[in-house]
């Protein structure tokens, strides 16, 4: 992601790192197991042990080296790939196809996606209607459950959700790292306002039509999840839009720019989530006394959340997803995590720990299960020749 070598921040000693990692060792085990007993099936036990070891090694390294971004990405990207594998496998097992029929929608069998949250709020407030064909309480990813998860994550992480929880973001995060150097270096700042425009547009049109406009017309991730059955010209037209957006925003542009272009230039949920940065307790600040205006942070920010103006003001733009890229990159330690209400530059490592603990735990909780499921599917394929039960 960065154009220059990441520099170490404040590494901890081996003993201190081990002590700090201990709660994560216990909590991650609890979250990944989902119960008191180890799985008996070897095809379940092996993924659990692999993921458990993987996440704790990553977290330990995060503490030991003082670096955040590379270890976050090391889990975040496989998590996104695992989501696609596990989601599609479950979908085909349950339904036989990625296509969503009218019957599925009518019976509320559509798993709720967090991207829908901004569109559902106004109609729900005004008409007490959830404009999404999912179940409120039952089944996989019910509406109520996803709302609760979102509220908790928003209060703790703000837009950090986009760097530590969104399984869609991990796909383009991965594609953005395929080239060593970008082919496209400059994108006009005006495009960084497009996510907010898409947000306003889909909220207004969804309230007007009482249908989830983004899901029906603009979602790039329909290409790797589920989509309305291709039984009409309109559905095929919409599928063409989804595929084009996915190819362009999630694959091609990230490869060319080495940035998360879907997140930074299009995603309305990310724009919505930006406002939660106003209430989350930790943000990223630039200490102007240490900053040498080298612009490494500005050039390397994956979501266009840093520019010269914001850096001169001593902070990031509202869209900062707290991925840690600028913090790890800054040779002078000017960029750092910061607890609101404290002076800039005060105890930056403590602020980092206060953030990465809940962030990483959220990542493990949200993504650990998907990673286990994906590994289980791969082992199933290797042992039986079939990924679907």
């Amino acid at each position, binding site marked *: 992601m960065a154009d220059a070598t990441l520099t170490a921040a404040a590494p901890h000693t081996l003993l201190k790192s081990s002590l700090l990692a201990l709660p994560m060792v216990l909590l991650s085990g609890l979250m990944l197991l989902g119960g008191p007993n180890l799985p008996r099936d070897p095809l379940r036990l092996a993924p659990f042990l692999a993921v458990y070891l993987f996440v704790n090694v990553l977290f330990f390294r995060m503490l030991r080296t003082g670096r955040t971004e590379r270890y976050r990405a090391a889990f975040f990207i496989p998590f996104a790939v695992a989501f696609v594998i596990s989601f599609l496998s479950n979908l085909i097992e349950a339904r036989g196809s990625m296509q969503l029929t009218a019957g599925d929608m009518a019976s509320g069998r559509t798993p709720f996606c967090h991207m829908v949250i901004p569109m559902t709020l106004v109609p729900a407030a005004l008409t007490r209607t959830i404009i999404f064909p999912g179940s409120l309480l039952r089944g996989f990813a019910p509406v109520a459950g996803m709302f609760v998860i979102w509220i908790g994550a928003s209060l703790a992480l703000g837009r950090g959700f986009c760097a530590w929880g969104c399984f869609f973001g991990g796909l383009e995060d991965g594609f953005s790292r395929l080239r060593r150097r970008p082919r496209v270096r400059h994108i006009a700042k005006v495009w960084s306002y497009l996510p*907010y425009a898409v947000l*306003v*547009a889909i909220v*207004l*049109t969804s*309230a*007007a039509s009482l249908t989830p406009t983004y899901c029906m017309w603009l979602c790039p991730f329909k290409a790797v999840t589920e989509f309305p059955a291709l039984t009409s010209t309109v559905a095929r037209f919409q599928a063409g839009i989804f595929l084009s957006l996915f190819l362009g925003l999630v694959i091609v542009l990230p490869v060319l720019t080495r940035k998360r272009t879907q997140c930074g230039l299009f995603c309305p949920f990310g724009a919505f989530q930006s406002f939660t940065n106003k209430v989350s307790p930790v943000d990223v600040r630039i200490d102007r006394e240490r900053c040498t205006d080298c612009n490494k942070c500005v050039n390397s920010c994956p979501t266009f959340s840093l520019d010269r103006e914001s850096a001169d003001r001593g902070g990031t733009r509202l869209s900062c997803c707290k991925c840690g890229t600028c913090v790890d990159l800054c040779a002078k330690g000017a960029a750092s995590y910061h607890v609101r209400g404290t002076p800039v530059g005060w105890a930056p490592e403590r602020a980092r720990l206060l953030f990465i603990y809940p962030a990483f735990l959220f990542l493990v909780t949200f993504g650990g299960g998907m990673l286990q499921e994906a590994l289980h599917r791969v082992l199933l394929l290797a042992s039986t020749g079939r990924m679907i039960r």
Partner: protein
Amino acid sequence: MRGLLLGLSSGAVCLASCAPVLIPCLLGESRRVRADFVLLGIFLAGRLAGYLAFAVLAWSVGALLRPQPRTFALLIAASYIVLGALMVVFGLDRPPAACPVPAAGRLRRWQALVRPPLLPAVLGLVTGLNVCPPFLLAFAEAAAARTLGASLLFFLAFFLGTSVFFLPFPALGAFRASAALRTVGRLTAVVVGVLYCGMGLGMLR
């Protein structure tokens, strides 16, 4: 009175239907609150013109004009596409660069004079012709009215009832100083325009 009460009761629906067009316009134009009231007035006037024109047409021809569902759907689709195209034009519109050619300068001055009232009025007209549910009511009432005057009066009262809900919108002018919001307004108009064009094309099949 019946028209007024009906307007007051369904104004929220009208508001929701017109908001995707009106809000980007108000945000993107970046005017004072007072000027935004003028813009709103022009938009509503265009909308009313659309309603009344079709009410007259429907009453004049009566049952003959009662369209088949397919014809109606095509009309709605066409107006969605036109509205979408207008929104995209509004969103991408920029003041033309200075040019030494005198004719270009005259064109610029004419455009600067005509465009501000023209575009909101046209947007209001097309919005009133397609996306607003009371348009269907206008058609039914107009076709059944005994006199043209009664039909127009009913619809005027209905329109006044719904317009009350639009009054808070010019307050968006309080944010005119924010360049970021102006940019978001313009881009929102483009996105809404693209969505409406897509919806209209989808309705053609």
